[in-house]
């Protein structure tokens, strides 16, 4: 008997309820009409339709009460739910018919659900986390600027939330997900183009492609030559420059560094050094150190010490460009005649280039 009653209780509030002796009532419950004549054991009270209606109305009140004041009932601070159940218990004492019992059952179901919710509220874990505070923290994370007020928004919201706010949150939250990247084709749509335009395009494309092919071999040939030619042309160009200078002033040596360094381009500078070394190698210009010890370029004279080079290495070693001007080997004919073999190593890197521009 107790267990039947407690089945309804355990899902309810933590406050214990008195057991309801339902089995005792069960034998009293029949499905008599209000006006029908029942077994002789029933008293007048049970027969009275007003009384029946009263009980049913009270049950309905209780049910309404529970439904309308749900939040209130859930409040752990009060025992309103228990009160309702106690009321129902009292009412149940007078229940004689199925209709009333059905209402009682309905009320109990409601109360059970509420009781379950109320019990879950008692979880300690749930109460420690405050979603409002969490929201405030999130706003800060998203970059809320609390000093600036959003104009035109309602007064409760302070501060300006930047456009990228949700993006920022999304980027950080992505880590929590093991989302599979969506599969999308990189180009094209599934819409089929109507056939005629496609054919026209194809025909047009076919014609130029043949010519393009024919063009290719000649172009390539030109490319091959130009690599070597380009260097030669450059060297010749530089020689021409130098000769112009010397024409103006044959005796004045030109500072090497001034000549080769291009203040606008480091790579150009390296190229200039490279080309200059050809000229020196071929003996077309001479290079010697001036009174300050800086290299300078001068016109070839018949005598004198000057540098000459054969082997030219432009090495790239940790951002340094090394240009070694190596001595001439015996047997090589030079324009300069009997020249003393000397060697000069020039190095340049971006840093020193920048410094030298200044």
């Amino acid at each position, binding site marked *: 008997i107790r267990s039947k009653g407690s089945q309804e209780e355990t899902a309810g509030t933590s406050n214990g309820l008195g057991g309801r002796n339902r089995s005792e009532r069960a034998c009293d419950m029949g499905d008599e009409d209000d006006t029908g004549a029942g077994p002789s054991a029933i008293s007048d009270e049970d027969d009275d339709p007003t009384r029946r209606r009263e009980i049913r109305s009270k049950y309905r009140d209780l049910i309404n009460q529970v439904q309308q004041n749900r939040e209130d009932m859930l409040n752990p601070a009060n025992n309103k739910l228990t009160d309702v159940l106690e009321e129902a218990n009292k009412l149940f004492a007078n229940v004689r018919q199925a209709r009333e019992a059905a209402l009682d059952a309905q009320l109990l179901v409601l109360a059970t659900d509420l009781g379950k919710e109320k019990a879950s509220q008692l979880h300690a874990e749930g109460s420690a986390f405050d979603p409002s505070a969490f929201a405030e923290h999130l706003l800060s*994370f998203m970059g809320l600027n609390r000093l600036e007020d959003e104009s035109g928004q309602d007064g409760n919201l302070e501060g300006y939330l930047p456009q990228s706010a949700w993006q920022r949150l*999304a*980027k950080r*939250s*992505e880590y929590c997900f093991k989302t599979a990247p969506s599969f999308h084709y990189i180009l094209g749509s599934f819409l089929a183009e109507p056939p005629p335009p496609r054919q026209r395009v194809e025909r047009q494309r076919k014609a130029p492609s043949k010519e393009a092919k024919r063009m290719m071999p000649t172009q390539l040939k030109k490319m091959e030559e130009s690599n070597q030619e380009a260097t030669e042309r450059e060297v010749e160009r530089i020689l021409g420059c130098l000769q112009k200078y010397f024409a103006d002033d044959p005796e004045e040596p030109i500072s090497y560094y001034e000549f080769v360094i291009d203040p606008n381009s480091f790579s150009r500078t390296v190229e200039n050094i490279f080309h200059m070394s050809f000229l020196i190698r071929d003996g077309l210009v001479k290079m010697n150190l001036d009174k300050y010890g800086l290299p300078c370029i001068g016109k070839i004279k018949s005598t004198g010490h000057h540098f000459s080079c054969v082997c030219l290495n432009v090495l790239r070693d940790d951002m340094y460009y090394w240009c070694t001007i190596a001595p001439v080997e015996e047997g090589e004919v030079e324009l300069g005649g009997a020249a003393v073999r000397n060697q000069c190593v020039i190095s340049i890197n971006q840093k020193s280039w920048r410094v030298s521009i200044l």
Partner: protein
Amino acid sequence: MSIHFVSVSCVYYSQGSIAMSQKKKAVSASQNKTQRRSQVCLDEDDEDAHFSQITSSQVQRAREHFTPVQIDRKVAEVVQFILIKDQKKIPIRRADIGKHVIKEYKGIYTEIMNRVCRTFEQVFGLQLVEIDPKNHIYILINKLEPIHGEPVSMRPGNPKTGLLFVILSVIFMKGGVIKENLVWNTLKKLRVDPGEKHDEFGDVKKVVTDEFVRQKYLEYVKIPHTEPVEYEFRWGLRAEKEVSKLKLLEFVGEVCAFLFLLHSLIQLTNLSVIVIINVIKCPLINL
């Protein structure tokens, strides 16, 4: 001893009878094909039921009937089908795979699906996971764990991910089930009002209660016996598999701890509010 035997044979008998009744159901279902109701789900349940009725002899016949090349092709078709279906992140039903792709290769369904799973793992680094063993629903998730410090993808983040994260973390921190009002109130604090159109999310209520629910990130369930009707939110089946609770908790902790520290700092040192706010704005403090 004898009693023992009887009980064992009873078990076999009852298993047999269950199998019998299932077969009968399948047979009658196929007989009813002509009288089929318009309910689509009923159709697909029958289609799906076929998968469990395949006998080993059927499998053998199927394997002999198709060439290895054909089977390879079928595997590739299934892979492609799943990849396309996954674009919207709506879980894929086994019945759909059967109806649209596998069709007559039903007999070797298991073999095909095994190879499909292997292909996903080895070629794409993805995992095909059955989130609902009862209804046979699959999702694709990433097999590779995201590495902290490296961007998860090169594409700009989808703002909906942030929205989903907020809801999932509140549900998680509150024990796994919350009433819908809690979600709406929290979002309102974040300037996202379900009643208004939002710049980034549009119809927020639809995104949360329809899109996320269809994608199985969330469950939006009616609370029984409520008048007017109220709903509660839970984690969906996809979220259970796709979201790392640990990582989520870490992030929640980061978000809260930072300001907790700051709060303590204010109290300890009496720093002015302006200084603190500028500290928050400082780009170095990038969680």
